[in-house]
Structures are given as structure tokens and as C-alpha cells.
């Protein structure tokens, strides 16, 4: 009995994903970002700072525009296709406490460790060797985060395909990390390892840092691309199945 009630509750939560549009929208977003990140890896820049600044601007703009376009497209499609077939639901508004709790978790789990690592790399010379291995562990970290998020979504909605996608994201991250590790890492010159980075970034570091950033973006770009393809494929299969079950909009006289 409890299982049946739970299943009915989860159907409501899963309704947003019933037609595959949300996954296809997210997949298109990931695909574009992946291509953008990979292209960035091929376009050279003079200094690491200008490289980083232009990459941040490019990705920020690309992400904002694509995210907005994807959200609008999904709403439009649902309004024209899904709601006339299987009905409309209005999701619960998220309480402010939940938003604050989410932001606190992001801060604790993502931003603080990144800032801590950056500070450690600048202040502690032995930690600097970690910097060049970023192309290997960053995709694994992103794959694990996306995998956990996807798995939790699957548990919350009762949709097995999200758990499968979570496992695939983690495996993709590990595979990309292994590929980057097998390719080897750029070596940091001895003087760059010992210099005081707090006051001045040594010139000798510029080349290996750009190489590392390019490699990092190649790995993350590949991972994002693969995750986008997985999301698109899952969304497409879900959409085709939904369309087969609901070929026509609902009619009162049917």
C-alpha cells in the first residue's frame, strides 16, 4: 500500500520529464557547451590571464544564452505538445529555506574546496605539482558531482533512466580522467615551483599553465559533450515513447 502511494507521489514529481523535452533541452545545452569548451582548447592565447578572462566571458555568455533558449523552448513545447495530451501541473514553489540550504551546500562542497586548493597551490610550493594534474581529476570530480545529482533525481522521481545516466556520467568522467592521465601532464619548471606566486607569477609558468588549461578544457569539453549526447539520446527515446502512447491531443468526445 505504502509503495503504491509512494509511486503515485513520484509520478507527480516525474511529470516534468514525461515527454523527454527537459532532457533534450539539457542535452542541447551540454552539447553546445562541450563544443564551445573544445573549441576554446584549440584557440591559442598569448598569456594565461587573457586566456582565462576570454574563456570566462565566452562560456558565461554561451551558457546564459543557451540556458535561456533551452528553458523557453521546453516551456513552449510542453505548452503546445504535452499539456494538451496528458494535462498540466504546476510545480510547488521552492521555499526560501531550501534555496538557502542548497546554496550553503554548493558553497561548502564546491566553492570552498576550489578556493582552498587555489590558496594551497599559491602558498604551499609542494602542492603546486597538483596543478598540472587538474586535467585528470577535474573530469572525475565533475562526473561524480553530475552522477550524484542525476542519481538523486532518479531516486526522487522514481525514474531509473536518471540513475543509469548518473552511472554513465561517473564512468565518462573516470574514462576522460584516465585518458588525460595516460597522455601525461605538462612539467612545471623548478624555478616556478619554488617562486613566490603571491607577489608575482613567474614567466616560466605561463606555458605549462596554458597547456594545463587547454588540456583541462579538452577533458571537460569531451565529458560535457558525451553527457550531452547521453541526455539527448535519453530524451529522444522518452519523447518517441511518449508520442507513441499519446499520438493525439485529448478530445472531450474521444
Amino acid at each position, binding site marked *: *500500500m*505504502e509503495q503504491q*502511494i509512494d509511486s*503515485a*507521489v*513520484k*509520478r*507527480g*514529481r516525474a*511529470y516534468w520529464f514525461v515527454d523527454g523535452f527537459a532532457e533534450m533541452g539539457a542535452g542541447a545545452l551540454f552539447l553546445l557547451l562541450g563544443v564551445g569548451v573544445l573549441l576554446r582548447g584549440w584557440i591559442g592565447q598569448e598569456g594565461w590571464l587573457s586566456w582565462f578572462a576570454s574563456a570566462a566571458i565566452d562560456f558565461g555568455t554561451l551558457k546564459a544564452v543557451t540556458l535561456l533558449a533551452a528553458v523557453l523552448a521546453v516551456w513552449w513545447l510542453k505548452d503546445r505538445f504535452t*499539456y494538451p495530451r*496528458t*494535462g*498540466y*501541473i*504546476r*510545480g*510547488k*514553489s521552492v521555499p526560501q529555506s531550501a534555496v538557502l540550504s542548497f546554496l550553503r551546500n554548493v558553497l561548502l562542497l564546491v566553492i570552498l574546496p576550489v578556493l582552498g586548493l587555489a590558496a594551497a597551490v599559491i602558498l604551499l610550493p609542494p602542492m603546486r605539482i597538483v596543478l598540472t594534474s587538474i586535467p585528470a581529476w577535474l573530469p572525475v570530480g565533475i562526473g561524480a558531482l553530475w552522477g550524484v545529482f542525476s542519481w538523486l533525481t532518479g531516486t526522487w522521481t522514481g525514474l531509473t533512466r536518471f540513475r543509469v545516466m548518473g552511472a554513465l556520467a561517473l564512468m565518462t568522467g573516470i574514462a576522460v580522467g584516465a585518458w588525460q592521465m595516460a597522455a601525461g601532464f605538462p612539467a612545471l619548471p623548478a624555478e616556478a615551483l619554488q617562486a613566490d606566486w603571491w607577489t608575482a607569477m613567474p614567466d616560466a609558468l605561463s606555458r605549462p599553465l596554458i597547456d594545463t588549461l587547454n588540456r583541462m578544457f579538452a577533458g571537460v569539453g569531451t565529458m560535457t559533450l558525451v553527457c550531452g549526447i547521453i541526455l539527448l539520446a535519453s530524451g529522444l527515446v522518452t519523447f518517441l515513447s511518449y508520442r507513441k502512447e499519446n499520438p493525439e491531443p*485529448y478530445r472531450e468526445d474521444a
Partner: protein
Amino acid sequence: MTETLHGLSDLDRVIHEPARLLLVALLSPVESADFLYLLKESRLTKGNLSVHLSRLEEAGYLTVKKTFRGKIPHTEFRLTPRGRSAFDQYRKQMGAIVAGKKSQG
């Protein structure tokens, strides 16, 4: 055994009916849902669905809002705080009854 039976007699009869329980369960994770969504998900007939929704409305467990989407009439149903509380209470009671029965068995 006696306590389990007492627990059964205390159950909310408005929600305990299977079709109404399903409707309340479907409405519980959302802010509101329209007639078509409830019809498709519950697989009840239109007449049956209307009767059960009216019964829930009479009990003060849901509210009905009639609007238009373009030129088409659109009816949305929303659980009231009383309906949500009754559903939570029902789940707790059922959980306790099932747990009591398991410990006895």
C-alpha cells in the same frame, strides 16, 4: 491485534477510499493539477473522477479554480493545507498499522 484494529477504525474515510487516496497522492507533490492530468494518471472515468473530486472538495481537502487557457476552459485542483495534513496523517497511521502488524507477525 486490538490496537491495530483501533488504528484501522481511526483512519480518515474520505482519503481511505482507493480512488480518492490516489487523487490526493497525485496532488500532494504539486502545487496544482488540471482535470486532464488527474484523468490520465488515475485512469478513472470522467464521471467517476468528478464525483471523487467533489467529495474531496466537500471535505475541504481541495480547492477548484476555473480559468481559461486561450478560449478553452481550464480547471485546476489544489490540495488545501487541511488536505495535505490529512494525507500526511493517513500515511503515518497506515505506516504504524503496517509496522504493528509486522511486529505481531
